[in-house]
């Protein structure tokens, strides 16, 4: 088993209702997916906002590890080290096509 890492997760305003208002929480996991699993366990309901049924990140959710978008790395498989900072940010997006 890969070693679990303790990371800090930054929670965006729209998801803080799941964390009792906390903007920063601690979690453990050897990769991003495991940390998201841990979040869901601690804060039920937050997980489905982040991932689809296949476990992949939703199209309009971005996750950054130490400032780097995990889409440019290995997505939810992106490995984590102790002390990493995981930032979650839902998109601000839309359009004018009717």
């Amino acid at each position, binding site marked *: 088993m890969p070693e679990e890492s303790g990371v800090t997760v930054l929670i965006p305003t729209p998801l803080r209702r799941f964390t009792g208002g906390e903007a920063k929480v601690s979690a453990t996991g050897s990769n991003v997916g495991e940390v998201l699993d841990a979040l869901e366990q601690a804060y039920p309901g937050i997980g489905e906002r982040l991932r689809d049924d296949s476990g992949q990140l939703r199209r*309009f959710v971005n996750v950054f590890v130490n400032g780097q978008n995990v889409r440019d790395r290995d997505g939810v498989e992106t490995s984590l080290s102790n002390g990493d900072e995981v930032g979650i940010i*839902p998109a*601000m*997006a839309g*359009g004018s096509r009717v």
Partner: protein
Amino acid sequence: MTVVTSQGQSADIFPLPQEMRDEIIAHAKRDAPRECCGIIAGRDGAPTRLHETRNIAEGNRFYEIDPRQLIDLEFRLLPEQDSEIVAIYHSHPESPAFPSATDVRLAFWPDAIYVICSLADGDRPEVRGFRIRDGEVSEVTLTD
């Protein structure tokens, strides 16, 4: 006119200073025919500063704020200034200042006011504000 709930949130007005409206209109004109986008930072629901952002969406009919900028604003810059995102703005270069179906579907920030600037009438840009929550759109009155 109703105003402030016990949580301190504006129920149906949003104070948007004229200079910020002018900035939004100028940004919209500069980026047309593409949509422009940005956020307005503030405290207690009242705007303090406008931040233009990059639109990373493809084509002229969509916007998506660069998530790299967004993460920096949400988790670093604004908390350092003791402020938060109170509004999100974007332009509709050729359509009315009203949320499109896409705007409603992709409204993931229910606590923010969605400000839309229409350039459909070239001589008279229009700026309006909305709450978009759970698929429901309600207009907020923008005051100076």
